[in-house]
């Protein structure tokens, strides 16, 4: 009797541990928690005129390899620029200090990330350094707007040349 009672208690304990282990696995390995950089990191700053849809903890990639994540995004009140702080893994501490940072979109509709194009300087970035060369996110709406303006022959353009000739 005691033996039997003990065995179902052990079974219940195993069941509860298994359930919580599954919850822990789901919560830490399959969600954005898994993207928190584990090891030590150093911080770089980059200012952009427009960050588009860039979000906190978006990946930072060099040559397509994830080397860190976006730590914070704030507005520089004097230049009215977006200042993005990037936490880079300490392992990747040999990034030339004339590298440039750009904001890319993964795929046509994917999330945005910060891509770093390495430069050729012999000096490397140190903690707290700032990117000199940055390129803002490409706005799909702007591209479409430009395409529509340049692509279709607009009626005002037909009217404009005579007016321009008169002026000459």
């Amino acid at each position, binding site marked *: 009797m005691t033996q039997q009672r003990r065995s*179902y208690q052990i079974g219940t304990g195993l*069941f*509860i541990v298994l359930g919580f282990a*599954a*919850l822990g696995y789901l919560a830490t390995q*399959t969600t954005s928690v898994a993207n928190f950089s584990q090891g030590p990191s150093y911080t770089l700053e980059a200012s952009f005129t427009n960050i588009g849809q860039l979000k906190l903890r978006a990946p930072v990639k060099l040559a397509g390899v994830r080397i860190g994540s976006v730590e914070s995004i704030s507005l520089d009140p004097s230049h009215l620029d977006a200042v993005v702080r990037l936490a880079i893994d300490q392992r990747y501490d040999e990034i030339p200090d004339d590298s440039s940072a750009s904001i890319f979109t993964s795929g046509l509709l994917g*999330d945005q990330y910060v891509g770093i194009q390495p430069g050729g300087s012999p000096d490397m970035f140190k903690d707290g350094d700032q990117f000199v060369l940055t390129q803002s996110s490409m706005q799909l709406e702007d591209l479409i707007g430009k395409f529509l303006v340049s692509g279709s022959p607009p009626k005002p353009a037909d009217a404009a040349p005579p007016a321009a000739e008169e002026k000459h």
Partner: protein
Amino acid sequence: MSGARRSSVAGDALAQIGACGLFLLQILAAVPGSLRHFRETVRQVWFVGAMSLVIIMTCGLFVGMVLGLQLYYVLSIFGGTAALGTVVSLSLYRELGPVVTALLFAGRAGTSMTAEIGLMRATDQLSAMEMMAVDPLAYVVAPRFLAGLVALPLLTCVFNALGIFGAHLVGVSWLGLDNGMFWSNMTASVDVWKDVINGVWKSVAFGGVVALIAVFQGYTAPPTSEGVAYATTRTVVSSSIVVLALDFVMTAFLM
């Protein structure tokens, strides 16, 4: 004439709902008393939880594999198979995990609760307990209710984990998706609180509802073999309906 009958049907339904609500209050009042019979609660967690693991794990695996196969086919039309992990995990965490587990739980554990309590009533065991000054609500009903509340969220997590494993099996091992892409797209778009924990809240609510309906139907079943059979059927029917309706309401609130 027919109006009177219809009103009596509606009255019966309302009376059932009301009795169920009052029964919930009675159970909650009996919960402190049931802590003295804590071992009974543990035994019920073993019975409704651990003994349901096999069916939950098997079904989770197959649901995940089917999701992997179907969504791979649909996503390949748009060239978006890289999002397979994301879509599978989100649909499991937010909807399929809690709901399918609750439906399986109603069939596997709810029916046995109803039949057991109904037969206890039919064989006068509940009256005997009352005679011995043991409150059957505290000794029989509340432990089963608590066990449902505890076991279903845990079973849901196991179901989800096996579902992800099944989708990985089909998508990566069989159809040749890239392993890194599968996981990194998933971790990029699944949120702990909004997706995983909200699903767990849902399954806590479903566990309470299914266990409540099961013990209520068993406790109020007519003490005949026909009555117990009918109560068992009603447990499955009404807990399935309530789980699906409650799922809609909770989704609307938790979104």
